[in-house]
């Protein structure tokens, strides 16, 4: 509710939101693409191992595409970013809290919700789908390259499999889910960070708590959206 109250204060949150978008978006790209690339490789190999003899090999393309878009892209990258983004936010805001920087902000007539929380949550909600779109594409590309190099599957066959059961819903479902993960991870990081008490120990506890809560919520949300939207 505090975040909603802070929404009209655009003058305060707009500038820090751009800074956070760069931090969350651009800086998270390498780790996300690294994870997605290897996920694509493993998916292609495991699909081929599972299908051997029973299912035509071009279904590797179907499995890689569907799984990267619907599930593994958003969830694996979401869990990795809960560690990278959520922990970093909880630690940063927790340190600001225990060193009275949050109080200082208030005495300078800033609302911490407008200046600290909203920019991070907006940046997370906007940037996660973009990062995960790259991750989906990377996973599919590495799955395709693996199929070419190791599975004796041609590009036309891989593309045939990829297109076979493709629906536009696969993409928007994955991206929508990613946006909710971005919202959850950043909101949890901020809430836990601002509730930090004590010194370094308190900051450490908040960081751990933010990652654990975010991971649990991502898995719950994943199941929830599957039930509601699929």
């Amino acid at each position: 509710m505090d975040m909603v109250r802070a929404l009209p204060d655009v003058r305060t949150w707009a500038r820090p939101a751009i800074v956070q978008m760069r931090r969350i978006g651009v800086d998270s790209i390498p780790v996300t693409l690294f994870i997605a690339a290897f996920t694509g490789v493993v998916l292609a190999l495991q699909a081929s191992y599972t299908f051997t003899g029973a299912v035509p090999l071009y279904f590797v393309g179907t499995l890689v595409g569907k799984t990267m878009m619907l599930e593994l892209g958003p969830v694996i990258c979401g869990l990795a970013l809960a560690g990278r983004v959520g922990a970093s936010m909880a630690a940063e805001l927790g340190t600001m809290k225990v060193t009275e920087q949050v109080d200082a902000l208030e005495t300078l007539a800033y609302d911490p919700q407008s200046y600290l929380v909203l920019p991070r949550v907006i940046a997370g909600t906007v940037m996660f789908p973009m990062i995960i779109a790259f991750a989906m594409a990377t996973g599919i590309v590495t799955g395709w390259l693996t199929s070419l190099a190791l599975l004796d599957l041609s590009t036309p066959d891989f593309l045939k499999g990829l297109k076979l059961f493709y629906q536009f819903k696969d993409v928007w479902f994955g991206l929508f889910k990613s946006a909710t993960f971005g919202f959850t991870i950043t909101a949890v990081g901020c809430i836990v960070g601002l509730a930090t008490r004590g010194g370094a120990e308190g900051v450490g506890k908040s960081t751990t708590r933010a990652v654990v809560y975010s991971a649990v919520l991502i898995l719950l949300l994943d199941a929830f959206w599957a039930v509601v939207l699929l």
Partner: protein
Amino acid sequence: MIEFQDLHKAFGDKPVLQGVSLKIRDAETVVIIGYSGTGKSVALKHIVGLLHPDAGDVIVDGQAVSTLERDGLTALREGIGYVFQFAALFDSLTVAENLALGLRRRRVSAEEIEDRVREALALVDLSGTEERMPAELSGGMRKRVGIARAIALRPRYILYDEPTTGLDPVTSAVIDRLMVRTREHLGVTGVVVTHDMRSAYTVGDRIAMLYEGRIRQVGTVAEIQETEDGVVRQFIEGRPE
């Protein structure tokens, strides 16, 4: 004018303030002294609404702080500068950006922000540190930047929370001189929380001692120095018993 009216505050089952009443007149500096953990900083935080009282209130310019909505509180805070015990500078901002942040909120023009930052840093003898990061400053310099951040706002009131704690005697004297200079140059009303008696005698027009959650005695520097009250005497003389 700032007035504490029968202020009560407890954390859990531990009462900290148990009926603090004190008036701070315009353009004077009142020093609140007392043992560590007696609630001096807690009392100070009530003035800007960082804490909400359990009972009683703080009245600033006729407004009861605890009854103010967010907009009212923001307007009140725009007239108050707060110097934190450990400066509370924003780690990710340069010295100049730390000073400019509060001014930007008050819609001061970019040119004026630049002038005010330069002036405030000159007043605390830190000209040329604009682009440095807080991590590159010593403890004394950080405190002076904290004071400059408050001065740059040109507030009606400045609240100092333990401004000399943890500093060597010379740096403490520099900070004391700075507080006196700030009052003389800007005519602001000051509230200083400290247990450093040398600092209290230097900067205070009046001194109030907080003891067991209440104001034990309040008086001019001379009155406090000549007090007959055993508790106050023991504290100002720093006797263990």
